[in-house]
């Protein structure tokens, strides 16, 4: 409860919040379309510009999330222990992001390799090469 604010003040802060979220959202859409070349400037060859736009979009979204949680959901006025018990577990996602995106990236890099291995046909019984292999083991001949 926003006990430190009068009724009129809290109403005013709600509409200020609406204006803030609206402006941030419109700016996000503008940034996104700018990056895609809809604003008359073609930036798709400048990867650093695209990277800044992507980071900007993520930061603005995180700011919107912070504002919704702390003002609209009143987390800013709750006991600190409550806020920490809800917000700290979310940090687990940082590792999930790193691990899974790394996984996706290496998947892309190995797609061709995996496809080639799947299409490779066994060319005959394995020749004995230094190490003794059972007779039913076949070696894959690549390319």
């Amino acid at each position, binding site marked *: 409860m926003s006990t430190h604010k009068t009724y009129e003040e*809290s109403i005013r802060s709600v509409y200020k919040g609406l204006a803030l979220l609206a402006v941030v959202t419109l700016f996000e859409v503008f940034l996104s379309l700018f990056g895609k070349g809809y604003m008359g400037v073609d930036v798709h060859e400048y990867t650093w510009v695209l990277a800044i736009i992507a980071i900007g979009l993520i930061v603005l979204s995180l700011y919107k999330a912070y504002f*919704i949680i702390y003002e609209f959901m009143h987390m800013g006025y709750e006991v600190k222990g409550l806020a920490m018990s809800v917000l700290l577990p979310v940090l687990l996602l940082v590792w999930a992001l790193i691990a899974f995106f790394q996984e*996706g990236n290496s*998947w892309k890099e190995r797609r061709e390799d995996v496809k080639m291995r799947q299409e490779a046909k066994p060319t005959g019984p394995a020749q004995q090469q230094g190490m003794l292999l059972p007779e039913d083991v076949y070696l894959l001949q690549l390319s």
Partner: protein
Amino acid sequence: MAGHDTTEMEHDVHTEQENAWDGGTQPFRISYGKLMMWYFLLSDAFTFAGFLIAYGTLRFSSATWPVPDFVFSTAPFGVEHRPLIFVTIMSFLLIISSVTMVRAVQEGHRENKRGVVFWMLLTVLGGAGFLGCQAWEWTNLIGNEHMTVTRNPFGTHVESGVYLGPDGKPSEETFNVGGSYLMHKAELNTSLSDEEVVAGFSGHDDEGHGGHAVNAYDKDYGFMYVDEEGFIHRKFVVEEGEKPGSVQMELFGPVAFGALFFFITGFHGFHVLSGVAFLLIILINSASGIYAERKNGYEMVEKIGLYWHFVDLVWVFVFLVFYLL
């Protein structure tokens, strides 16, 4: 009481903050119901995060990915090629309904029944409007653009080249690396001759919107291939790419895009739908005066308010991941 004196002494040396955890009080100064709503929302956040991280992983793993400003560029009343306009309107509906929800909670604190009912009614309207927009978006994607969970007709060029015209020769229509295309579905009309089919495709150099008829599926027309399901794979000559000069045809985009889009926006839409249902129940209860008798500042309105803001919060990230990036 046995042991009374020792516990008494322990109490004396503790500060008031630590006493809060000895029982009998609410250490987080929040009711059980609201606390459990917070923890439910935390678990729900992990579910959505799992979905969105899966989207990111599959996007990173694909050589190409449909660009949102091409896929989401249609709006009702015949609006086309206006990227992101419609989803921006959807976002605003949710933001505004979040604000009206805050107003309902504020009126609840003042024990103002009429105010609570009025602002909750507006919130329900915002939620229902969002669902209506989403229904239109899905209908357009499934019905007109033929995207499903197992098929994605939105593709991306990985080389630059020039399309073949209906006469089988390279036309004026060129494309660059990274250019997007949507594969249209041809109608089946077995009474047409091959000449009539080709004539139907002449004089069109724009994207076209269906209406193209062919006399057989799974048939190669020279300048295009129509597959078993009727999708038109336009052919083109590669100018810059792996095999310059070769003739290739458009292929479907990554299947995962359709599956992820329908599962994630569907899961979010289901949250909105159940949110609207609970808002209505609590709206009716508020109007009936149940909460006024409890004299606890309309706490049920606060709880559904937390849930409703969470739905808006998730949309911030769905909007970011699907439409902005």
